[in-house]
């Protein structure tokens, strides 16, 4: 599942089709927020760029509503955006089917009302077993396994904590387990796919886009990730 920060460039929706053509199973679209406390420098910069262009969560969703991506779209944003009234309707109108809110843990889920949208929960290497089981039970669509104790951002290799976590999550859920945070290169994606059902790649794509990569170039990177996955990462 490749990620793009919605609104990062005027032509950002063109990347969606490029990612789908490159073999993405799902696409994660970040709705920009002023204080992305779970993101490292690359996605912070992308969010900042989107906001500076005048993008808002609502404008990004409106642009999505007018776009045919061809694969399911998962929105991701922060609690301050996700808890606003009307958000669920905006998601549905945009054709989004799933949602990730990294600063809304299990304990605060009751405050979120997004009927018709699958809310995927995050699991962390620090999550104890009993809590992991509850995450496995309550997550919808897939479980987002956070491969490393840290923020989003590129890393040289797949963290050792990734495989252990993916295995633990697989024990507690029948949902697909997607590994994310720090997966930056095809070889890492392949290593991750050996222990999980799929990978989420964000900062490595956004750095390319921030450096000027157009849809074709970014799509080629996604295609390389796709090729590296040992067999298709079937998500649904």
């Amino acid at each position, binding site marked *: 599942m490749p990620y793009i920060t919605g609104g990062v460039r005027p032509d950002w929706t063109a990347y969606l089709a490029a990612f789908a053509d490159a073999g993405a199973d799902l696409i994660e679209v970040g709705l920009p*927020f*002023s*204080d992305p*406390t*779970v993101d*490292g420098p690359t996605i*912070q910069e992308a969010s*900042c760029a989107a*906001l500076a262009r005048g993008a*808002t*969560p*609502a404008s990004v969703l409106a642009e999505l509503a007018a776009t045919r991506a061809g694969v399911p779209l998962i929105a991701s944003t*922060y*609690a*301050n*955006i996700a*808890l*606003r*009234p*009307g958000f669920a309707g905006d998601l549905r109108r945009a054709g989004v089917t799933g949602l990730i809110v*990294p*600063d*809304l*843990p*299990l*304990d*605060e889920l009751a*405050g979120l009302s997004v009927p018709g949208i699958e809310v995927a*929960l*995050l*699991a*962390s*290497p*620090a*999550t*104890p077993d009993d*809590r992991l089981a509850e*995450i496995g039970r309550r997550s919808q669509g897939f479980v987002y396994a*956070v491969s490393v*104790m*840290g*923020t989003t951002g590129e890393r040289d290799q797949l963290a050792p904590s990734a495989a252990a976590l993916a295995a633990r999550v697989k024990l507690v859920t029948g949902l697909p387990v997607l590994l994310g945070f720090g997966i930056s290169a095809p070889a890492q994606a392949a290593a991750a796919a050996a222990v999980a059902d799929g990978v989420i790649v964000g900062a490595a794509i956004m750095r390319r886009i921030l450096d000027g990569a157009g849809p074709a170039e970014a799509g080629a990177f996604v295609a390389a990730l796709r090729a590296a996955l040992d067999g298709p990462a079937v998500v649904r």
Partner: protein
Amino acid sequence: MSSITVAPDAGHLAGRFGAYGGRYVPESLVPACHAVADAFAGAWADPGFRGSLAGLLSAYAGRPTPLTPAPRLSAELGVTVLLKREDLAHTGSHKINNVLGQALLARRMGRARLIAETGAGMHGVATATAGALLGLPARVFMGERDVERQAHNVFRMRLLGAEVIPVTTGSRTLKDATSEAMRHWVTDAGEAYYCAGSVIGPHPYPTMVREFQRVIGEEARRQCAAELPAAVPDYVVACVGGGSNAAGTFAGFAGTAARLVGVEAEGGSGACRGEAGVLHGSQSLFLQDEHGQVKEAHSIAAGLDYPGVGPEHAYLRDQGRARYVTAGDAEAIAAAVRLARAEGILPAIESAHAVAWVIRAAGTPALPAGSTVLVTLSGRGDKDVTTLMAQARL
């Protein structure tokens, strides 16, 4: 679109002040928050811990701090002003009360390091100080803009052995420093202890920091009882950045008839002009635009330059138990100079906001002539001399 809906039924949950508070953190920090909450609950119920903290507060931090009548200012204003002198606490502000508590807790938890954010640098200095005292290396995140305007405190932190990390994102002030401290905490959650500087952050921080600051209000309550014929002042006033000196002061007077007043910076008035939202781990009131983006605050006082307020203040506001007002930059500078000349006490520019409101409100229905008013002077103005040299037209 309106701001997030405040669910009125959330009051039964731990760490809630009515609907405010909570624990909005990434999954990776949830176990760390649980660990801090459990450790704090154990420590706070342990007479040994309370004794160690009380010992440090008196023998090291210089508590109790005095309650000082301000006779000349009182005569000028027509109200009786009493000053709670947190400016006389070790390191120069109330921040030391909280930090000694949290640093002792970090040691009790076996943590190897302290992480903190700072605005004016007083919390950073206090953290560096407690780190030196207890042998815990401290890493302090500070907005680049604050690094410039509080250079004196940056040097103090480094002198005390702390590492100061300038934060270059966003408004380069307290909001961004707090975000960066939280990002860093995730990477070191197993060994580092996050030492929050105010009554903000995920549960248990707002409650814990208030409990560590409660000493201000409890001392002041006893001192007022000795000083005032009516035992309790009519008004209790404190400045509010995140709201820790105010929360600690108010805690001592919650059960009295005293009217509680929190004074925010005009450009950082979360409680006065904020809307419900979620930032830095809790639901509270934040300055936001119509799309839910958090706005940048603007205040000459780095410690008040924050777009939100701690969740308990949001609750006290909604309940009507405390009132929140603002004071502007120029007014605060003028109040600092006036207090210095009337009483020989130079307050921090943060604290001067509380004094400024008293000066403005005295003799009006907001603070009628003849009232008694307790003002918490949260810190001293030494750190602000460079700003005062540029701003105060003497």
